[in-house]
């Protein structure tokens, strides 16, 4: 299960809406199993169907989390025309087995569609998302 404060979820959804129709991506840092801060990342691909963290920005952010004893707690990204479910590409490239993968779909302008998953060794498991 993923517990996320309402304010953080709102920030993530707002980011996804802002970057629509391109995919948005970012991280929620965490410590001791709790979310600490949302880090909005650049989608280096600037694409409606693909995202990739900028390599230099990723190094900086990963270092800053290391220094603060944080981990990449949530990896989030948006799908802009399809459901909030990991795609084949998402699954084959998932590289943080300890992270929650949060998917936001912006296909509806009014409905908030957000789901959380674990992706380990190519296996996807949806988990409950609890807004606190």
């Amino acid at each position: 299960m993923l517990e996320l404060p309402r304010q953080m979820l709102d920030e993530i959804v707002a980011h996804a809406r802002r970057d629509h129709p391109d995919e948005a991506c970012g991280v929620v840092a965490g410590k001791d199993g709790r979310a600490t801060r949302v880090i909005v990342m650049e989608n280096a691909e600037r694409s409606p169907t693909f995202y990739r963290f900028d390599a230099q920005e990723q190094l900086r952010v990963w270092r800053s989390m290391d220094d603060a004893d944080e981990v990449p707690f949530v990896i989030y990204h948006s799908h802009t025309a399809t459901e909030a479910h990991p795609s084949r590409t998402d699954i084959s490239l998932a590289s943080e087995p300890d992270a929650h993968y949060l998917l936001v779909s912006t296909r509806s302008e009014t409905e908030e569609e957000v789901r959380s998953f674990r992706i380990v060794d190519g296996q996807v498991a949806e988990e409950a998302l609890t807004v606190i």
Partner: protein
Amino acid sequence: MAIEVRIPTILRTYTDGQKAVEGKGDTLADLIDDLDSRHAGLKGRLITEQGGLHRFVNVYVNDEDVRFLGALETKLADGDSVTVLPAVAGGAERPARAAVTAGGSF
């Protein structure tokens, strides 16, 4: 002196859970061969069958992305620090690029 290599979580199965290991080599390619001699299988996760650096692995030498330094031919010296990070990437659909399928999954 040696070269310190920081290993990401997903590859620590090859390093007995160690976050950082040491190695040696005059180039990044040499260093990866050296690491693979003690941490068998690591090379296969960093380098494709075609012999290039995997598209979805980021390698940094002293915090510089090796793609801008010379990739596998990047020169190394004792005391350098190497960081490996899997790229964070994905998307709704497979992009129409051969590199993604050729690179395989991370």
